[in-house]
């Protein structure tokens, strides 16, 4: 593969290849996707490592994310300051974890963070209720939501502390082998 591109230095490209699961071609393709979101904000030359952050509104308008009920949480989890505004590094990280080459543990770790709405490293009842409402588009009555959350905690909580820790979540993943193929965004 010739070094005909002038966007990144070879060291930068190597670093990106090491840190994500993408090949050179895919990294460049993702860069063009990132740039297409806001051509006036993103410079075509990243060799001097510019500090460019795209606001959440632009990220959330991507066709891969715009109808996903969890898009805001995804952007928040992968953004540097937790506010949904993403740099190119965050952008590449996000799609790298959501690609099909990421291992199960990594995906489980990030899925857990996505469903943890209050960022306290535990999925508590309120987190679960928000998740269920997003999953069902608020079609269930509050009573049904409460029952479902209780069931989930009862079935998944192994150490009986009333909330789900990362280990409980990983234990649940083992019983759902579809997780690897569903926690995946093709870009």
């Amino acid at each position, binding site marked *: 593969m010739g070094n005909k591109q002038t966007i990144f230095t070879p060291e930068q490209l190597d670093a990106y290849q090491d*840190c994500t*699961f*993408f*090949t050179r*071609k895919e990294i460049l393709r993702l860069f063009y996707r990132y740039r297409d979101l806001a051509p006036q904000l993103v410079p075509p030359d990243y060799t001097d490592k510019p500090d460019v952050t795209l606001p959440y509104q632009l990220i959330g308008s991507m*066709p*891969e*994310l*715009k*109808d*996903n*009920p*969890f898009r805001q949480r995804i952007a928040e989890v992968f953004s*540097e300051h937790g506010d949904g505004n993403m740099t190119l*590094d965050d952008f590449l990280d996000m799609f790298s974890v*959501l690609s099909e*080459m990421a*291992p199960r*543990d*990594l995906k489980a*770790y990030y*899925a857990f963070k996505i*469903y943890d709405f209050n960022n306290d490293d535990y*999925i508590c009842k309120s987190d679960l209720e928000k*998740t*269920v409402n997003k*999953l*069902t*588009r608020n*079609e*269930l009555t509050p009573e*049904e939501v409460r*029952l*479902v959350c209780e*069931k*989930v905690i*009862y*079935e*998944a909580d*192994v*150490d*009986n*502390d009333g909330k789900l820790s990362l280990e409980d*979540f*990983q*234990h*649940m*993943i*083992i*019983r*759902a*082998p*579809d997780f*690897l*193929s*569903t*926690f*995946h*965004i*093709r870009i």
Partner: protein
Amino acid sequence: KLVGNLASMSTSERIKAIQKMPGTMKKKREISLSEYFHLLQLGHKTLKIIGANFGTSVLSYFLFLKWLLTFNIFSFIINFSFITVPQFVAAEPNNLSFTGLELFTGAGYFQKTVLYYGFYSNATISKTENGPSYNMQLAYIFTTGIYFVICFFILLFSMAKSFCRNFINPQIHSGIASKLLCIWDFNITNEKAVKLKQKNISMQIKEDLAEENREVLNFSATQRVVRIVIHLVCWVASLGTAVAACAGVYFLSINNLKHKNDLESQAAMLVLPIVASLLNTFIPFFYSWLGHLERFQTPGHQIYLLLLFLFRNIILKISIVGILCYYWLNIVAVSESQDVICSDFYKEFYHLENSIVLCFFFSPPRIIGTIVCMNLGLPEFDIGRNVLDLIYAQTLTWIGILFSPLLPGIQMISFSIVFYVKKVSLMMNCQPPRKLWRTAHMTTSFMLLLFFPSFLGVLSVIGVTIWRLKPSEECGPFRGLSSMYDAVSEWIKILENYTTSKWVVWIYRNLITSELFFFSLSVVVLIITYLYWQIAEGRKTVAKLLQKQLMNGGKEKRLLLEKLWVLQRKPKNPSAPRGQGQQVSLIVQVLLFQLHAWYDFMGFL
């Protein structure tokens, strides 16, 4: 300790550290290989659109189709390079004329081309005098043999990999609650599909909650009898149709054996493959209608009914393929003149390929049929039936590959056409599936189905052909021998005269033709399987014990934390500070021990 270290790093460092873990190194090596296969980005965009609109389960069908296509490309390359290319060097001139009808019947002009076994020479080809020679007989039999061995190992490893990745959990009836956090399909990006999925999930949750609250219904005796009677009737009906289909195919085939060589009867010979594919296309509709009947009686147990439907289809297809094989193998025994063997046998395979292509093209009438049955709703894409069609087509290809080495090439073309036709019909006609399919289980079972009935059955048919069937005396690379395998035995006899290749003869005599070798090999394989099974059982028991220990540990932890909290709140008594301190340190030590056991358990899992 690892988690502690990770927790102390910042977020980005943590990400890099996780990605540097050894488990991911293997994936990165695979990635550099995949850079060279960017040709296979064919359909990447298509797959993305399908996954976005219909979800992962329908996508798994298309991924399976793509895998079969790659597999056929590989088969074609092997057969073409080792069998067909040398044949081009020693080709005989083709003096038959080409009329358009050959594309349908496969007779006439095509008889003397490389499409058929009859055309291949039995000579040892050499380009120059005393130059390196190429023995066509051995090449033919060894290429086919090695090809099947490679297929065997490819299938075995794909199955094992798929099984490992999607560890099949026998708990079929676990409710939705335990998988709620794993259920959202991030692939779906179409707004309507997202809304539909959300509706599905809410419906499933409501059903799940309702089922819990519902009291156990006691069916009255008459209702139970009615249910059993309906089940029996459905089974009898499905087996009866399968038997009737087989009888039809059998009588048609007997009719075909008395043939004349004119145009009319050649067209009449097309009837058999067309009828076989029509039966394969329309009888499954009848089976799904039966399934609807049964569904009314047993409202739950969706997966059980689905498996039943697939099982009946498999029985139908296996029986039709069996009858066809029996008919082909008997053609040689029944027919009198040798010329018949050369021409008829191979025409059958061409008809076969046509029939496979035809049955895929029956999709539009099929869809109209489903619309009529489903009361003006858009039909769903029936993954099970479509996958069975693919496996059926691949089985027929494998059966025919011995006699028509370019069959994988035809199959390649047909699969590519099927890919695009199915995609177009999917987009235009279907809605996303309503049931939540267990994609991972299904992918593994597709592979399993491909391997067990299909591939192993083909191996037995090929085995019978090579060892028992007398090849024709006028055409084909094995003319003059009493069975195809004799080519190998004669070669070994020749090799005995050369001292340098005595080891080959030794291996042949003592390993390949000795029954003792295969017996001991089977015993060793069985022992290893038994050991692995016992290890798996042992691990299951240990996991259960550890889980119980963990639950008890959780309770203890809570009690101890409460005690700690109480102790810290007590007013400090100067007379007994040491006792309190000792108690606190003891409690902290027990807590740390619990945490340690926790991490061990999770690591074990």
